[in-house]
């Protein structure tokens, strides 16, 4: 297959399928269809950690680290909203250290909404949304100081991380906090696995957020993604079977399923 600059007919069909699938799922969710979303183990870990904090009466820290305004932030807010609601219910102290000024505005909005939903709107303290710094390492050292001073009982690290992830995880461990992390970047997941109590991997962050917040766009996107991934999984299964048959019976010349993607317009004779 030469390179790709213009879509082949097969790719065009796939693009149309993806766009229509997303719009169809959105329409369905907005008309009240309740999608099933499986309860991933990460959610039990989140609720368990808050329960333990309630027993010990210790503070809960939730950071979105380097996450800027965008879909990853909205996924984090789905979980933050659920965490803040429980913390408000248990009358615990919540601290949300911030890195990006733009994201901070939206985070404060989400936490205030959670307190209102828990019927404890008056207890919401704007000071709990703490802006530390918009420089990577200054933010990390600020977070370390804050976690030590507050003796946090649970530390949630959700969103986009870079090299400073190590410093954040170590701080929580030193004060004996129950640590739950969720990162979209695979390099940092490796560190979180051996420094935190539970780690949500890649898209599990979106799964947890959709499960906890039931936010329409997140649920519809998750459903559309699953169906498109299933399509690709089926293509791979067919391709593997075809390759296996081809290997067993070399004389046959089976059309491989990737032709669906690679056949150019020009070679389609009408």
């Amino acid at each position: 297959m030469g390179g790709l600059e213009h879509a082949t007919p097969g790719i065009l069909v796939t693009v149309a399928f993806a766009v229509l699938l997303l719009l169809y799922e959105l329409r369905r969710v907005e008309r009240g269809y309740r999608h099933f979303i499986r309860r991933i183990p990460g959610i039990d870990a989140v609720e368990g950690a808050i329960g333990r904090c309630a027993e010990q009466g210790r503070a809960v820290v939730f950071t979105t680290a380097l996450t800027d305004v965008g879909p990853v932030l909205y996924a984090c807010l789905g979980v933050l909203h659920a965490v803040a609601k429980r913390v408000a219910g248990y009358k615990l102290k919540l601290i949300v250290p911030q890195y990006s000024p733009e994201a901070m505005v939206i985070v404060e909005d989400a936490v205030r909404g959670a307190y209102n939903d828990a019927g404890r709107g008056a207890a919401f303290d704007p000071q709990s949304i703490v802006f530390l710094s918009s420089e990577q390492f200054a933010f990390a050292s600020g977070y370390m100081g804050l976690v030590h001073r507050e003796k946090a009982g649970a530390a949630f690290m959700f969103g986009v991380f870079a090299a400073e992830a190590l410093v954040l995880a170590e701080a929580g461990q030193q004060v004996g906090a129950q640590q739950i992390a969720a990162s979209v970047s695979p390099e940092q997941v490796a560190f979180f696995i051996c420094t935190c109590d539970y780690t949500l991997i890649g898209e599990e962050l979106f799964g947890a957020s959709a499960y906890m917040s039931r936010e329409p766009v997140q649920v519809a996107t998750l459903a559309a993604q699953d169906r498109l991934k299933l399509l690709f999984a089926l293509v791979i299964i067919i391709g593997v079977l075809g390759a296996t048959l081809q290997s067993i019976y070399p004389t046959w010349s089976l059309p491989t399923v990737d032709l669906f993607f690679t056949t150019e317009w020009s070679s389609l004779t009408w």
Partner: protein
Amino acid sequence: MILAVGIPVFLGYSRPPSRLVSAERMYEVMAKTEFKPGEVAMVWLDFGPGTLAENQPQAEVILEHLFRRRVPVVLLSQYQQAEVALQRVPREVAKRLERELPDQRWSYGEAWINAGFRPGGAIFIQALVNASDISKFLGRDVTGMPITQYPNFAAIGGVERVKLVGEVTGLTGVFDTIIQFFQKGGYQPTVVHGCTSITIPEAYIFLDSGQLKGLLEGIAGAAWYSEVLKQHYPKSDNTKLLVVNTALSAAHLVIILLIVIGNLVPLYQLLRQRLWGSHG
């Protein structure tokens, strides 16, 4: 840790690097890719000070091999901070080769040209691939001279005549734009990649699918590549690189030791508490 790294560097002590098959396969690709007259290699240096330590040795071995083969190289970058690397790396490789082979010359404008920083990322690359004549599309080089004035680079023509694309970077996303956009109907270049170690596991899926034909895995990859280069060009000098690679290996041993101790100490305390705690 600073001691474990410092001792090999101070003594100039080096051990043979680990044999990395990926570097060997890349050597074969770099040696066998055919360049007809007028055809060029395009090498992207997309790294700044942050990943200089791993990316510079990789850029040096790639350019050394292309210079030895007398392949004209177009150098450019999608990253502003690569400004000085684009100027310094080819010059240092040329100087090293001219010291080794005094009768030969590698000069700017003949062996390589520097098209400098080009903003736009994917938009720039998909326009470059679509251009009918790359020399005109790139316009001027960093010195302000039209690229059409250099005989070796005057009439490159379409992107089909870029036979090899080298991408040396530590940035996420930049390598993806090359894989995703540096292609067009009926043309897919031979892509070789020098990556920082953090993205080694990612790069392997592109080696498996053939989108990537050669990979240098961090400093260890550059070190083994320089050893293979030395087998074919005995006078090639890679002592400094081997010393750095040995110091890196020593640092690894310290990390492994610290992890083992870090896990045994609490285990020992736990056992002591369980055993003596219950007697006491």
